[in-house]
């Protein structure tokens, strides 16, 4: 084929008619500061450490559980996206934030029909206790209703997440009635790269902090620990 045709095709490709993306500025710094402060308090107060069992709410009519799927999971490359270490279940949940305390885990929520992941730029929020705001990861997989692994529509079905940032699941217009929200965790190294199972050569410990806000504004927090070792993801009780 000749140069003209190649040039014409390249020109078409680089001048595609796309809809202008929307730009949204970062959240108010004051809110970010309060989030950081809240997170520090939450970390300080976090005493419920979970692992192969269930941790339930301490008091009140609002409650949620954070359940580990198993004591440990042996992962293959194919299975790593399928691993859902933790499940959140609860009533009257309005918002969920989760983040990796130690920065060794990229977290995402597998959303359900009744939850909308918040604005696609929500993940841009400054992470609690960190000044590293850049987004790093996308996990484009979720399970469908039959448990089959599918690529997600990221803007609506799954949140994008950094190890430091939190993700919110919020539906402003209706109170979600779903009770089952999986959390997907992916190990990452100090360079913030995914560690696929064959590369779990370095042992990483991490703490996942989950904060749930209920419809009446009450907040509850639970933590869970993960150990990445060999090709296994272990859900440890040791803080």
């Amino acid at each position: 084929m000749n140069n003209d045709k190649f040039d014409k095709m390249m020109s078409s490709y680089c001048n595609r008619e796309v809809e202008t993306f929307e730009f949204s500025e970062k959240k108010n710094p004051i809110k970010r500061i309060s989030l950081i402060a809240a997170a520090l308090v939450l970390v300080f107060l976090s005493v419920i450490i979970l692992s192969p069992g269930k941790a339930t709410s301490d008091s009140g009519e609002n409650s949620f559980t954070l359940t580990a799927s198993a004591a440990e999971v042996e992962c293959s490359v194919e299975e790593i996206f399928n691993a859902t270490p933790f499940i959140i279940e609860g009533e009257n949940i309005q918002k969920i934030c989760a983040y990796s305390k130690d920065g060794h885990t990229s977290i995402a929520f597998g959303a359900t029909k009744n939850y909308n992941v918040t604005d696609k730029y929500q993940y841009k929020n400054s992470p609690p206790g960190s000044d590293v705001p850049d987004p790093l990861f996308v996990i484009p997989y979720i399970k469908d209703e039959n448990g089959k692994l599918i690529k997600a529509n990221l803007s609506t079905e799954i949140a994008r997440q950094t190890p430091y940032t939190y993700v919110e699941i919020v539906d402003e217009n209706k109170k979600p009635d779903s009770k089952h929200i999986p959390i997907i965790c992916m190990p990452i190294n100090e360079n913030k790269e995914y560690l696929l199972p064959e590369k779990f050569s370095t042992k990483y410990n991490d703490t996942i902090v989950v904060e749930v806000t209920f419809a009446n504004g009450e907040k509850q927090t639970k933590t869970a620990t993960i150990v990445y070792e060999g090709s296994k993801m272990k859900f440890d009780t040791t803080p």
Partner: protein
Amino acid sequence: MKKPFDKYIAQYGLSLTKLCSSLCSNRYDAEDLYQSTWEKAMKKIKLYDADKPFEKWLFSICINTYRDNLKRFDRKKVLKFSSDEEQQRFLSSIPDFSFDKDEYIALHEAMSKLPSDLKEIIVLYYFRDYTLKELSEILGIPEGTAKSRLYKSRDILRKELNYE
């Protein structure tokens, strides 16, 4: 700060969207890049020399942001189109559809596989018909390097697409 930026976004939002869409293999990365570029531009606006074209300055920031996030973008090269819908969206965005759709898909995949430094230059070259001097300024590389990269990138793509 916000008011002048609204003007910039209104004026250059579309061109930046196009650049991001050509640099990234999928829409979500492109949106991320778009967002990050404007954020950095807002932070660095004091460094902008008003005597020079804003678009080139903005594109430089975009390229640097793209480079800063290469690990993330590179990891997903293999994903190509994440769905039939995304592929259809891509095809419908082609302004001059004078070739077979499979050729455009092959081009998109070839672009996805292109090393980032080569992709940057060929995208800018065909997007704005920049001269080598302009390309070297935007990319922050010597003119000779720009020339060799442009040649190499076109050569690779032609071979990939059997355009020799």
